[in-house]
């Protein structure tokens, strides 16, 4: 870039920054409060349509993998049906951006049901024995 081009680039870059609505930055600053420091993150390992594309019940299966366990979830029209593998009993929360929206017991074979199906972003937070696992955020 010559001097003129560099000056033009600075001008364009700064103009662009000035055009960003302040809300976009505010939302960003607020997101820091959601930092999880005490839980292990379970990343989304697979995402596959588990059923035929039958309307209206499009079932989707999600697998979240942490170090020592996975959380498998099937999403149906009315609920999240899940299993913790290997099985262990505990408590699982459904959280959206506003906080905890549903809580369910995880039974001895690792099964749980959470509902209703959240609209927008959500994540699961599992406490089972000494394991505290939080899934990454997903949107369905």
């Amino acid at each position: 870039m010559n001097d003129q081009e560099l000056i033009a680039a600075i001008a364009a870059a700064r103009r662009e920054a000035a055009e960003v609505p302040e809300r976009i930055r505010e939302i960003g600053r607020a997101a820091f409060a959601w930092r999880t420091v005490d839980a292990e993150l379970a990343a989304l390992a697979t995402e596959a349509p588990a059923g035929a594309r039958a309307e209206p019940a499009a079932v989707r299966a999600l697998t979240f993998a942490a170090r020592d366990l996975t959380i498998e979830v099937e999403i149906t029209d009315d609920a999240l049906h899940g299993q913790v593998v290997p099985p262990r009993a505990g408590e699982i929360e459904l959280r959206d951006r506003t906080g905890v929206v549903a809580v369910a017991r995880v039974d001895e074979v690792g099964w749980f049901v959470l509902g209703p199906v959240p609209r927008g972003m959500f994540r699961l937070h599992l406490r089972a024995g000494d394991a505290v696992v939080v899934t990454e955020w997903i949107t369905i």
Partner: protein
Amino acid sequence: MRNDPSVIDLVERARDGDATAWDALVDRYAPLVWAICRRYGLNGADAEDVAASVWLRLVERLGTIREPAALPGWLATTVRHECLAQLRTRRRHLLVGDEAGLDTVDEPAFEELLVTQERHVAVRAAFENLPEHCRRLLSLLFGDPPTPYTEISSSTGTPVGAIGPTRRRCLDKLRSDPALVTVAGAERT
């Protein structure tokens, strides 16, 4: 692209809980988030939803970002993904994977957008690092047409004959900023 030391520093500090560093990251990359939303025709509440998803994902990724140089690329891809999710939500009947016609930004265009955004991020970061007199002088030159030297002289107190050399020194200082030397195309031609 090499790692911009200031990004590495911000990511590490944010990871350790420094909210100021996190705010600086948000400031730095908000224009990238916004630019991609706009490219997908999203604004208002839709763009805010996208931004919320993207920032939350970035927060949870802080601990696992090994290569801060990859951050803009990761962010851009995530924003694009969230924009498509948002568009899909608008068209409820579309299932995942059934996105024909949804992604209106093709690969070359997206790549170009990313390159431009990375350059702008770096240029802004370098500009912020300039001494105040440089920032003021360069700001006066942004105008189209640029502010005449005589006016610049009277508003900054710099003699007319010194404006050209000062401008060159300021631009050279900008070019040598670590944030900018990592960006292709920023070198002097």
